[in-house]
């Protein structure tokens, strides 16, 4: 819904993502904020934002596979692991430059995704959930088998001769890639493939009758989603250079990623952003403050309260959103936007 007095007179205006001058200004301010962020925030917040960016790329991938195309993927973290270890091996063992390893990590994760997504033509719903669940456990088992459970060290990312050896430098790379990934995910919904994904999600038999090649588009959704996961994994590997281990990519991470698109609103790119940012903030900001209080209030609680409190909090948030507001934060944002545009009228 547009504010009163805003008319689109050309096709280009109608399709534009950024419509008005105010939005351009807000976008510029937002980008300036992201650029300036490491200079006024502490090292901790830069780290939180980097983690948010990496998570966001993986969640965008899941948003494409699950949110847009409706193919349930319970193994996103495992596909991230594939990307992380591909990138690690390519740069540290084979000595390839980071700029080669990054797309290779994405493609490798995409190919593994194709293998486990292939059953999606015959099966769906619960069955597909089981297949990707098996993928999660099998991939992590294979990674542990091949590279060991111990932490593996990875060289710093470098572009040309420029070595990204500090958190701040890595932050800029991650933010840039996150913006590109987000823009691509947003624009995907407006292409033929994106519309095909939505049709497959809403009713795959009807989509097939309309002439959509189910096998191709389901696999494409898996490939793109896992490609994103691979890119996120590669960034993870180079961001946490001295300790990547299989334990960082468990089923729990996969469930949290799914939870992020649920909290944000399934099927909405904005929702993926809102969900990821709010959950990561909850996890990194709220949990460290709340857990000492909990530990002080209930002294009989065991160790690891931070970890457990984070898990409980997040699980509760997901369940509450699913039962009370299944359309997620993106829906709230829509309501707010509509109401201020209509203000002071009710309808």
């Amino acid at each position, binding site marked *: 819904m547009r504010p009163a007095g805003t008319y689109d007179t050309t096709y280009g205006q109608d399709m534009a993502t950024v419509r008005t001058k105010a939005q351009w200004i807000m976008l510029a301010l937002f980008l300036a904020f992201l650029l300036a962020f490491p200079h006024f925030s502490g090292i901790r917040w830069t780290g939180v934002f980097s983690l948010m960016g990496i998570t966001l790329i993986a969640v965008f991938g899941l948003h494409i596979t699950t949110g847009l195309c409706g193919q349930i993927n319970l193994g996103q973290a495992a596909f991230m692991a594939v990307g992380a270890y591909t990138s690690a091996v390519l740069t540290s063992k084979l000595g390839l430059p980071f700029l080669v390893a990054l797309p290779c990590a994405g493609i490798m994760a995409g190919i593994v995704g194709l293998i486990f997504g292939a059953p999606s033509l015959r099966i769906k719903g619960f069955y597909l959930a089981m297949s990707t669940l098996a993928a999660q456990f*099998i991939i992590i088992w294979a990674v542990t088998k091949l590279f060991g459970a111990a932490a593996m060290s990875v060289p710093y990312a470098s572009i040309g001769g420029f070595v990204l050896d500090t958190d701040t430098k890595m932050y800029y790379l991650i933010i840039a890639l996150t913006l590109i990934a987000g823009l691509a995910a947003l624009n995907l919904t407006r292409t033929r493939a994106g519309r095909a994904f939505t049709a497959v999600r809403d009713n795959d038999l009807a989509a097939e009758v309309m002439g959509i090649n189910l096998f191709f588009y389901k696999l494409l959704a898996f490939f793109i989603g896992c490609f994103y996961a691979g890119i996120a994994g590669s960034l993870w590997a180079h961001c946490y250079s001295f300790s990547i281990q299989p334990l960082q990519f468990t089923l729990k991470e996969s469930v949290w990623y799914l939870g992020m698109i649920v909290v944000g609103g399934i099927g909405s790119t904005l929702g993926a952003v809102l969900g990821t940012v709010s959950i990561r903030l909850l996890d990194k900001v709220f949990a460290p403050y709340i857990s000492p209080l909990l530990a002080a209030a209930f002294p009989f609680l065991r160790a*690891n309260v931070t*970890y457990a409190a984070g898990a*409980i909090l*997040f699980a509760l948030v997901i369940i509450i959103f699913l039962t009370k507001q299944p359309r997620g934060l993106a829906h709230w944002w829509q309501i707010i936007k509509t109401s201020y545009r209509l203000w002071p009228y009710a309808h």
Partner: protein
Amino acid sequence: MFLQFLVSGIMIGGIYGLVALGLVLVYKSSRVLNLAHGSFLMILAWLCWSFAEQLGLPIWLSILLVLAISVLAGLGVERFMLRPLIGQPILAVIIATLALGYLLEGVAIMAWGADTKGLPEFIPREPIWLGPVSIAQHYLWAFGIAILLFVLLLLFFRYTKMGLGMQIVSEDQQVARSLGIRVKNILAQSWAFALVIAAISGILFASLNSVNNGNALIGLTKALPVMLLGGLESLYGALVGGIIVGIFEIVVGGYIDPWVGGGFSNVAPLFLMLVILLVRPYGIFGWQRIERI
């Protein structure tokens, strides 16, 4: 050697079947795949340990208490989580049950830490020898209880009003309602039943091994392949599938593990699950659904 593997496989398969039975029961009545089943199993076993060891209650009383709690928990979960999810896509149910599983795991970590504890022994330890084959009495008991429960449930589903009600609810909720069956009650009852089974299988499993948070994983990595192999809706499928998966796991552990290296037998049921998904997704006894637009 092979005979020993076979017998051990059948015995461990009985437990897997019992765990899967809880999943099948819920799926049969409400078409919900309860991915939190393993976590319930783990936390109910912890509760039993707490009653028996920390409060010093006799083991039979603590088991009864846990069974009572599991009934309440089943009713509560159905009322406050699953009922609001009716009519939402499958994805919502999957994520909600997984999140519930992690919620329970968080609670378990807070309350009991990451320890490994043993339940007090209520089944004698020494194995029974059948010729060259040894069977641990635990497994025999577990297997016997599993068989007994299967028979009771089969009779229940065939002859009681409640059981028939559950069957019709699983077939079509609208038809069930028009026949005068209270769908909500039926769903609540099946959840209570499923959690009682989770409690029994959790306590049996814990008495075989130990009580720890890792027990939650058998709900996902063992019971799901069993359920899928047997067919999602089939009770005796769960038993047959359990035995097949149990034998498969033990035989793979015995013959292939030395070649591939440790841990392969843990993921072997998942490989089996992938093969079933590709070849025959509706399992041995499941219903093959034909979809129309």
